[in-house]
């Protein structure tokens, strides 16, 4: 209940400025728009590139945008800053998971951006209706939804780990930037992983970023060779990251000196 209240308060806070809601929507959408333009230009008159048709590219980047509103965000900085300047002190004294609370707060602008983006998505789907063919069974739809949620949890753990690195480092933002860059490249946010050089694909297979976007979008585009295995691997990564996070958090809190604001 307390986290529901946190979410509602965060939503209310976003409502104060309509400009913010629109701004966040634009921030989330622009990278996908650009990349979609790039790949459509490369595609030109060709039927497909490595199995990706025009419709696939449009759907891919539409999905990247929408799943960013579900999966993504940036709560590493509030966590890190709160540790650095002691703002988390008060919440540490309460029966309230401060990192989870900040993660919940982050969902507010994403939820609103998602809602605003829906009409635009419908317009895009309509404009490319001849090129986009989504054929998903009920099972695939359910698996897609599950995969998306699991991807969101993996992303959240990675952001949380970046945020709590502030227990040890005075400048957390470089770690956050590196995480963002790795996520963009190896997560499939920049471009479909299957289009990348083999060595990059090999590295991507070893890192958790692939399991945030790439797995769900593969299910959506019916390009997943074994979606049950992929989802199983997402679960595995969640377990591993949860253990790592728990360990790092305990060590961090032990080290933490409440510096106060």
């Amino acid at each position, binding site marked *: 209940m307390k986290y529901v209240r946190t979410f509602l308060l965060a939503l209310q806070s976003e409502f104060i400025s309509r400009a913010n809601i629109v701004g966040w929507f634009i921030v989330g959408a*622009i990278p996908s728009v650009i990349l979609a333009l*790039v790949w459509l230009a490369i595609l030109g008159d060709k039927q497909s590139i490595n199995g990706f048709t025009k419709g696939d590219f449009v759907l891919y980047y539409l999905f990247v945008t929408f799943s960013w509103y579900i999966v993504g965000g940036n709560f590493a900085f509030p966590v890190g800053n709160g540790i650095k300047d002691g703002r988390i002190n008060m919440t540490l004294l309460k029966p309230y998971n401060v990192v989870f609370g900040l993660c919940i707060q982050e969902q507010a602008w994403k939820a609103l951006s998602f809602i605003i983006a829906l009409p635009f998505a419908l317009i895009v789907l309509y404009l490319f209706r001849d090129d986009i063919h989504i054929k998903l069974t009920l099972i695939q739809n359910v698996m897609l939804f599950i995969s998306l949620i699991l991807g969101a949890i993996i992303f959240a753990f990675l952001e949380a780990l970046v945020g709590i690195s502030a227990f040890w480092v005075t400048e957390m933002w470089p770690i956050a930037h*590196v995480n963002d*860059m790795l996520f963009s490249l190896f997560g499939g946010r920049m471009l479909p992983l299957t289009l990348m*050089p083999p060595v990059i694909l090999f590295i991507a297979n070893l890192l958790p970023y692939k399991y945030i976007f790439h797995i769900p979008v593969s299910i959506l585009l019916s390009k997943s060779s074994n979606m049950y295995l992929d989802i199983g691997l997402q679960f595995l990564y969640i377990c591993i990251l949860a253990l790592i996070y728990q360990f790092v958090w305990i060590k961090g809190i032990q080290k933490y000196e409440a510096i106060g604001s």
Partner: protein
Amino acid sequence: MNNLLRYYKRSFILEVKRTIIYPLSFWIIALIWPAYSLFQIIFLETIYSQTNNFVGYSKYEAYVLFGTFTFVQTLGHLFFYRRLTELAYLIRGNADESFDIALTKPINTQIFTTTGRFNFGNITAALVGLVVVFYGLSQEPYSLGIVNIVSYIIMVPLGILIYYIMYTIISTFLFWYPELKMTENLWGSIQDFGQYPSSLYQGGIGIVLNILVPLTLMASVPVDFLLGKLPAPMLLLYYALVTILLLITRLFWNFSIKQYSSSSS
């Protein structure tokens, strides 16, 4: 003018001092941004593994474009990023520094609050950009006349100015909407338009990105001059365009600052 030059000289010295005292930030930026360039090169190679010609650009022309964008963007980061990002906190009143005090200084407020702090770590990435430009030029037999080269050199500072103009205009909206939280992220997203050829943007998008909000001036236009895709006399047009944009930025700032309501004491 003397006042401004003294301010910049002093700020530069102080920033050098600060970098020497606290070198960690410098080294972190110096190492991370070139790594980001590596990722972008991987992306470039991926594109050109699928095609020989991307909207009229060959692979190595694309390297020149990417190198130029990196050079311009990182110099923009070096000169303007910190101050413009801090501006949001200044206007909202949740910085230790105060916009109120800045308003009382006998120095142009816009210049004082949007410039004068430097991010020296970006120098390495700027050098990487230059290296990539030279690499791209060395891989194909271009015949570059002196006019092409001079046009390019003259256009690159305009690209850096476009960085300043666009980020300042976005930040100026804070006077109207101090609760805006994403100006830095918005600029981060919008800049990406500038790293691709202007020919990628057609129709309405083309008009916006090539004329109204000419982000393609950051890289594509200078490179087009270098490679002879644009005639030299068009330089005057672009200079006129940037001058008009600078004027608009100034007018918008002056108009908007009257909305500043200051945070409570």
